[in-house]
């Protein structure tokens, strides 16, 4: 009887802990790194950036990851456009068509003004880490959107645009813009 008096409160306490202590969830799991974070997708039509952020506050963890990812996409865009400007300079020559080169450089500055339109969080995952949170974010930006913006900017001057159409750089940008159009059509836009 005495044993029962000790045992029953003990069992009740165990049951209370099991029943109302809250379920152990995926939040307790760490090291659950998504595949797309370690191996971001490769698609010639998109720029991708995968980043993670840590904070005691969940939203802050997400914001750190998204801000860093957007900054990364902005850098990728800048490098890409710098490459285009370099190739274009080599193609047309610095002295042969200075007006066209100047127009192209001006358009490139508009595209790399670091105003990003169309960046989307493609996928994200939030996990509990210690007493805080870790957020994983995969950000994407369609490459064709920038090419489209480039071409629109070049179209502003009819004379230089006609000469620009004859260059290899135009073909490269036009291909990207067309792929972007197809992508939009396929998505029902």
């Amino acid at each position, binding site marked *: 009887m005495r044993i029962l008096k000790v045992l029953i409160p003990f069992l009740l306490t165990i049951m209370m802990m099991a029943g109302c202590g809250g379920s152990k*969830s995926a*939040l307790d799991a760490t090291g659950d790194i998504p595949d797309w974070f370690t191996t971001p997708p490769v698609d010639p039509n998109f720029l991708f950036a995968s980043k993670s952020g840590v904070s005691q*506050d969940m939203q802050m963890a997400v914001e*750190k990851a998204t801000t860093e990812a957007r900054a990364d996409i902005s850098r990728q865009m800048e490098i890409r456009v710098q490459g285009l400007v370099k190739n274009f300079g080599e193609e047309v020559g610095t002295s042969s068509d200075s007006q066209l080169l100047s127009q192209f450089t001006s358009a490139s500055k508009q595209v790399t003004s*670091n105003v990003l339109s169309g960046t989307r*969080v493609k996928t994200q995952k*939030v996990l509990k880490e210690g007493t805080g949170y870790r957020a994983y974010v995969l950000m994407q930006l369609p490459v064709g959107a920038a090419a489209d913006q480039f071409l629109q900017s070049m179209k502003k001057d009819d004379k230089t645009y006609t000469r620009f159409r004859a260059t290899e750089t135009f073909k490269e940008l036009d291909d990207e813009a067309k792929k972007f159009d197809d992508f939009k059509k396929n998505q029902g836009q």
Partner: protein
Amino acid sequence: MTARSVAGGIGIAALLLLCPFSRAQVYPRWFLNPEEIPCEPAAIGVAPTGYYPDSTGGAFQNAVMNALRAEEEAVEGSKQFFSAGDGTAEVGTSVHETLDTSRLESLFKSLKTVRMFAIGEMTAVLVGTGGCGLSGGMDALVPLASLGTPAWTRMLPADQRFEYAVGISEPYYYESSSWLEAEKNGRLELARSLRTQVRIRQRLVTDAVLGSRYDAVWDETLTVTLRGARVVRRWRDPSTDLFMVLLRMPK
């Protein structure tokens, strides 16, 4: 130890074991899937459950504000982060949402409570115009445990007629606060995806112990107007207890 006290003990134990089931979340379909509400304008508002008139009044007011937000809302501000060898830290954030409140009075007059639902410590109200009729299916109570995790929580929908964003919130003391925070985070993410100005300043730091690294300051500036942005899906993840909303806006 009498038979009566043993029976009492077993009863208490049974109640305690039932605790997990009492946490099961059940929501009406119109709350989880606002996209399926067949009338326009319609909006959902939430408030903590207190005394009856205050709760429904608070939720109604929030719903009307959401209807106003769906029409047009300006999102402006900036945030800065500093990244060094020991990680990334927030320097400052000042992002605010601005509404044209001149329409508020007429919305208060034209919108009526269509449905009201109370769960635990939260009251939710659906508002719409007088002719907003819901089919019986929309009133069905859906236990979250019976649903699988929706695909949109992992990947945004592919329908490119709309711009989509997901807002997430951790659980707060009041459930309504969690939903409101998730909605706000969703609106801000939607604004960022439309147009964000990013500025990065980097500095090469050479340290005798750690070697060379880049310290960086990121600055994001937002000046965006959202038109027609609304919550189309809601989800509360039973495993992580995170609150998630899917917002969309016509392109």
